[in-house]
């Protein structure tokens, strides 16, 4: 089958949606399908052969943070050309409610369209308020996929209609084995964190507070932190001076190094305070066989099977995190047990399984339908009331 996939976020910036699309595309190609992805990307970014660049993404404030997106009439014409030249049997848009390529693709295309919603946004009226603007595109979607129950709830509550839940996949093989970084995890124990350091909902500050408690009681314990930050020095300043040399910041790491980081720690912590729909990073840590300590948010409770495959602590509660992580650090047999449970739980999320589930959605929407084409209207902007 010929499949066209749109990515709303810049390909050269690491992110959950981009990675989802890459892994899905590669799993579908492995299964013998023809896949083309269009994504914002800087002109000098090396792209895999199946990705078409749609030009540089522009950083704009959206929904309280700054996102790098493609919008505007030039992006419209690039998407239009990509669809016309692609001859796709199905168009798969990701995050169509984000003002970027996916929304534009919905707008200019006709034919079978599948949409995947990734984000869970609790209590935000923003989708509701802006819905009239995106309705024209949204109404063309034939099949909807949500990556989690939380994302599905957002979709149902804010936009209406229903979605089939297909959780994110994990390229589990990629995480299974790697050499630890030299000198890690060390005899005193090590806790790992991956994610943006300056995004409050990733919860690093909760972990840093917990480390004050843990580090004071365990003289050899170290904290390994990998992820981009606008101001890394500021992060270190939040740690009290006596503990500072035991907090190691790696900055943004490559995909390969990320796997090594995971194999360099004894316990992995996901202290997110919300806004997470699946927690791909947590699942990857599970695929590396790490015992997990995660905040008790919907997404983590689901992937950790309600606490069977990892410890849950009260969201945002540093003392509770310190207690849960401390117990794991002290109990090697419990760590082994959780490691095995995490590996077993994450097998359900392998990309080969997920890609087959997604493909069956494609098969459903193409029944009795024609190929994907562009709308007749040329450069016009048809927006019915």
């Amino acid at each position: 089958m010929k499949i066209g996939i749109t990515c709303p976020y810049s390909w050269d910036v690491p992110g959950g949606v981009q990675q989802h699309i890459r892994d899905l595309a590669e799993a579908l190609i492995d299964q013998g399908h023809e896949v083309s992805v269009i994504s914002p990307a800087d002109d000098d970014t090396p792209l895999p052969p199946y990705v078409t660049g749609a030009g540089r993404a522009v950083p704009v404030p959206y929904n309280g943070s700054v996102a790098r997106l493609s919008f505007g009439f030039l992006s419209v014409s690039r998407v239009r050309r990509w669809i016309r030249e692609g001859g796709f049997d199905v168009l798969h848009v990701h995050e169509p409610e984000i003002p970027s390529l996916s929304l534009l693709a919905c707008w200019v295309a006709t034919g079978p369209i599948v949409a995947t919603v990734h984000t869970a946004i609790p209590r935000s009226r923003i989708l509701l308020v802006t819905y009239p603007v995106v309705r024209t595109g949204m109404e063309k979607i034939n099949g909807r996929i949500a990556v989690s129950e939380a994302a599905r709830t957002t979709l149902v509550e804010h936009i209406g209609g229903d979605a089939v839940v297909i959780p994110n996949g994990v390229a589990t093989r990629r995480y299974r084995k790697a050499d630890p970084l030299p000198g890690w995890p060390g005899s005193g124990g090590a806790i790992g964190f991956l994610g943006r350091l300056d995004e409050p909902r990733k919860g690093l500050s909760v972990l840093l507070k917990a480390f004050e408690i843990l580090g004071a009681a365990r003289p050899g314990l170290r904290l390994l932190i990998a992820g981009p930050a606008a101001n890394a020095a500021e992060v270190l300043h939040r740690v009290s001076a006596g503990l500072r040399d035991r907090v190691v910041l790696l900055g943004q790491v490559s995909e390969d190094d990320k796997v090594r980081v995971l194999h360099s720690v004894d316990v992995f912590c996901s202290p997110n305070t919300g806004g997470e729909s699946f927690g791909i990073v947590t699942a990857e840590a599970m695929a590396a066989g790490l015992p997990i300590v995660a905040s008790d948010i919907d997404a983590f409770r689901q992937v950790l099977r309600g606490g069977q495959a990892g410890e849950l602590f009260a969201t945002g509660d540093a003392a509770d995190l310190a207690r849960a992580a401390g117990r794991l650090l002290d109990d090697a047999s419990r760590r082994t047990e959780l490691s095995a449970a995490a590996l077993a739980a994450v097998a359900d999320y392998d990309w080969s399984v997920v890609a087959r589930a997604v493909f069956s959605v494609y098969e459903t929407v193409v029944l009795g339908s024609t190929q994907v084409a562009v709308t007749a209207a040329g450069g016009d902007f048809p927006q019915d009331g």
Partner: protein
Amino acid sequence: MITDIVIVVAAALLAGVYVSWRAGRIDRLHARVEMARAALDVTLLRRSSVALELATSGLLDPATSLLLAAAVHGTRPGESGVAAPAGQQGSGRPRDLAESDLTRALRAAFSQPGFRASLSGKEGADELLAEVEAAAHQVFLARKFYNDMVAATREARRRPLARLLRLCGKAKAPEFFEMDDSLVAERSSAPLGL
């Protein structure tokens, strides 16, 4: 003897008149700050409403429309911290950040290469773009006037006599309103990442 008394009384009277004039001036400054603030609020609201009109005009592609509509939504009372109706807690970003977000969204739309050319000839496009720019410029002016007034007031409050005699009473020192308000990208403006 009598002349001495007359001089003392006259001096006391003069001092009283002077102090009362100074107090009156500080009072007037505070009142003018409030007026300038009200004017600034009006220009911000006007800018939001014109931006929303542009977003829903159908002139733009839906992605740009959505960006603008979302940014406007963020500046609404109750969404941003300031100017929420009494008894209602503002929930979102502080007002200055929300308004700066709207500036950046507008700037992102307006600074696309060929933006104007792509809209020229469409009905009402030129007028609407001109209106957005005018509204943005008024925000710039109103904010400048407001901040000037705040500076003058704070200066008057800082004088030794004003502080000694507490001439400003219970009135709080007015705060500057800082935001990114330029539709043209400048090298000196704050980086987008905040």
